[in-house]
């Protein structure tokens, strides 16, 4: 499939030539994606599938700055040239719709290639062998925690792109994404809860990587025990409390609360902008806290170039409490008063690129020690960290939110919500499980209330971002645990 993209030199030259002849600038995106998937449940294979997606998206920009896109399955030259012609005809009707004029900023041409894995490894995946391996894993999980319904899934995806522009830009990259996920549901008749767990790797033999499989089983066991315990757990009272959040929830906080509001296509209404300009230099959080987004090779959400063929930069959104950089693209950077960071991504060749995150994290200066792996910390272990650091002297009762279960933000108001998988009350008596509740509030309140951090950075919290109806992989994290002081605009829902 990468080879298919590598053979597009003549295809691209013909498209650029046609665009020049019609007096427009061109961005051509060719994509070849292949996904292999196996699902097992209750001792049998429920689905095995292989799917591919190959096609092109053609974007043209006329001298007035009008921009339109057309897409089609396949990479044949004549239909692609036909798309250019159709788009030029469509632009003739642009005035009737009052389409906005957004001239394309002048960009430096770029020619580069990043394919960090052997694409042939994805062709060699033996789905039958994967299915047998998943059945072993499912038996192992069910054996460790009986009385749970266990579903285990394998997904291996290689997502390859080649982006051409009229100015000679030609970049090719392939992003490998493989993961094992499990969904555990308690079998109690009266009340059931479901809890999920996942691991990822850039290589398709993830199901045979010893360390990754060990981590997967450990996370699955924790999730299964939680699914069994939750029906008996009481709800937590609503209100503002001293909180501890784990790195998965910290990723959610960074992603929902700050990342989306720093996307430059939304600065005309974002709470982080004034009159459409990013509020660079203004204080938005505690001065020992930074928020950083960058592509990390080997990561689930890695993307080295943007969907417009711009190299993706490291972006320090918040630098020690002050707003610094936005996630921008060629159409939004100048208007937002920020530098171009190449942050635009698309779900597929059919979609218009949008500035958005890759791997986002919260970093805290001088984190306190938390030796060992994250998974070794059960709620009592977290409580011991807090006790040793004096947090429990400051707050005799701390609420620990564990496990990220998705979130959402309103970038206009700065209101965010996210859900955890479990709540534990930590106090002198120990750790008491309570049912999950929505964690919501103001982004400024949340970032300003971060006080301590424990442990090294752990950036493997993965998810899917659904901005503007497009799903792309997201990831990130923080130190193992963050402590948040109580804040009236940061609240837990609950009883």
């Amino acid at each position: 499939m990468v080879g298919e993209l590598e053979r597009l030199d003549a295809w691209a030259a013909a498209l650029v030539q046609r665009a020049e002849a019609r007096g427009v600038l061109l961005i051509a995106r060719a994509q070849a994606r292949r996904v292999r998937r196996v699902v097992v449940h209750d001792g049998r294979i429920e689905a095995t599938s292989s799917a591919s997606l190959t096609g092109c998206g053609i974007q043209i920009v006329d001298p007035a700055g009008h921009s339109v896109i057309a897409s089609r399955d396949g990479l044949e030259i004549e239909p692609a040239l036909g798309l250019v012609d159709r788009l030029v005809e469509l632009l003739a009707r642009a005035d009737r719709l009052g389409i906005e004029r957004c001239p394309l900023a002048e960009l430096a041409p770029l020619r580069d290639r990043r394919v960090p894995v052997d694409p042939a490894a994805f062709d060699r995946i033996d789905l039958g062998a994967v299915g047998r391996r998943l059945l072993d894993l499912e038996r192992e999980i069910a054996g460790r925690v009986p009385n749970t319904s266990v579903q285990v899934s394998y997904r291996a995806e290689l997502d390859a792109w080649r982006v051409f522009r009229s100015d000679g830009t030609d970049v090719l990259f392939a992003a490998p994404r493989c993961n094992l996920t499990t969904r555990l549901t308690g079998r109690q008749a009266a009340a059931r809860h479901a809890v999920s767990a996942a691991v990822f790797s850039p290589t398709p033999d993830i199901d045979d990587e010893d360390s990754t499989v060990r981590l997967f089983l450990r996370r699955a066991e924790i999730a299964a025990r939680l699914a069994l315990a939750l029906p008996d757990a009481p709800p937590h009272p609503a209100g503002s409390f001293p909180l501890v959040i784990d790195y998965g929830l910290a990723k959610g906080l960074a992603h929902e609360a700050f990342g989306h509001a720093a996307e430059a296509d939304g600065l005309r209404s974002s709470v982080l902008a004034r009159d459409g300009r990013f509020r660079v230099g203004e204080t938005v959080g505690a001065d020992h806290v930074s928020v950083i987004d960058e592509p990390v090779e080997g990561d689930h959400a890695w993307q080295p170039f943007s969907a417009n063929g711009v190299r993706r930069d490291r972006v320090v959104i918040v630098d020690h409490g002050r707003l610094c950089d936005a996630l921008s693209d060629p159409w939004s950077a100048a208007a937002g008063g920020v530098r171009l960071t190449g942050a635009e991504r698309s779900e597929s060749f059919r979609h218009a690129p949008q500035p958005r995150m890759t791997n986002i994290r919260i970093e805290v200066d001088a984190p306190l020690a938390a030796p060992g792996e994250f998974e070794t910390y059960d709620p009592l272990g977290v409580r011991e960290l807090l006790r040793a650091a004096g947090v429990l002297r400051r707050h005799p009762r701390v609420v620990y939110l564990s496990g990220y279960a998705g979130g959402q933000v309103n970038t206009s108001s700065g209101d965010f919500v996210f859900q955890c998988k479990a709540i534990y009350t930590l106090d002198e008596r120990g750790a008491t499980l309570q049912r999950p509740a929505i964690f919501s509030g103001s982004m400024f309140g949340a970032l300003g209330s971060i006080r301590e951090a424990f442990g090294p950075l752990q950036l493997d919290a993965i998810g899917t971002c659904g901005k503007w109806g497009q799903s792309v992989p997201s990831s990130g994290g923080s130190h193992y645990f963050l402590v948040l002081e109580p804040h009236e605009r940061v609240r837990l829902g609950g009883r």
Partner: protein
Amino acid sequence: MDLSALLEAIGRGPRGADLRAWSFAGSVSRRASLGVKDGQAGNAHAPFTLGETSTVHYLLVWSDGRVSRGTWERRQVEREIDRALDEARLAAYDDPDAARVCGRASLPVVALHDAAAARAALGEVTEIADRLNAVREMVARRSFRTWSGSFAAAEGMTRVVTSQGFDAATSGTSLSWHVSLNGESGDGYGARRAETHAEFLARLERLAAIADDLARDADPDGGRDDLVLLHPRVVEAYVVETLLANLDGAAVAHGQSHFDRHGFGSDTPVLREDIELLVDPLLPHRLGSYACTGEGVPASRTALVERGRLVSPVLDLKYARRLGLEPTAQPYAMDTVRFGGAEQIPNSDALDRAVGGLLVLSVLGIHTQDPTSGDFSLSAQQSLRIGPRGFAGRQRSTISGNLFELLRRDDLVFVAFEGETTPGLLTRCRIHPT
């Protein structure tokens, strides 16, 4: 999509001889869309977009009883079918319940296509331009700070063919729009053809009135802590979707649902005894309407819950066989799902009964809830305090409770809303102002 190369390969090649049964659903669609971001129509982040898509969903039952399922793209079907069949054979697995295809059947006549929507899907802009201009006029007249939205039209053709003689081709269209004002309150419409311009304007004005109400805050004191009127959009997005997630045949078969297999057909109610939930894909020009599923199951009206009792999960061929039941209608869109109780009260009566409570217009965090337990804890930032003489301003809150307990309450009331097919719900849950 032209399936002739595929059907020829099945008929002549060695892989075809290795097949016991097969089923294909090939589709081709064209789509045109336009976005608006913060008042900018068709800018580079929400451009006018034309798209063409074609895929084939396949089910292959091999001579040894193993099955292969998946999708092929046009390239594979038209030029690489022998290789695609070889790869499918390598990926085959044992799943006896999935080894089932439909035979000949007569299909119901369902209105799915509209010529104006089809023209819009090809890039004709009249329909979109009229609506866009109406929104711009309203936004300017009422001085809203900003607005965003989307307008889309699509036309698709689908052919379902099976080895057992089923062969049906259908075509359909869709037209949809969504508008949000001030970056918050939003509404929209979708169907297989456009609503009348008067209906469009009426919906737009209702949205504008809500946005105006949300612009002023309620007095922080004086509200009740337990009475909510969930708007039909919240009912569809959370209540009905959660019920459907638990009625999914796979979830029921695998013990991942709130409901057990033995509960279906039982005389024991699981919800209040007047509650019903049914799927009717025969309704004309609805987004969720269809003549047959992608497997070739003819459309029919299906009750999922009647008198508070479980009737059937939502079942495709595989899970129908697994659970020993008949395949059902599929809830492809909310406008063919009917949810409600024995009676509905008018919206005005509900507001009288709910003084001091909250009208919840939208919630954040629906996708983060665990549907299996029914526990909910949602951020209701777009809520209006209900006063004795209309709305008394915005009250940001979180709401929490358990959905299944809520749907068993005697004091639950279904409320009719103008322009909505799903009722609102007047009920009690925990409210915490934020």
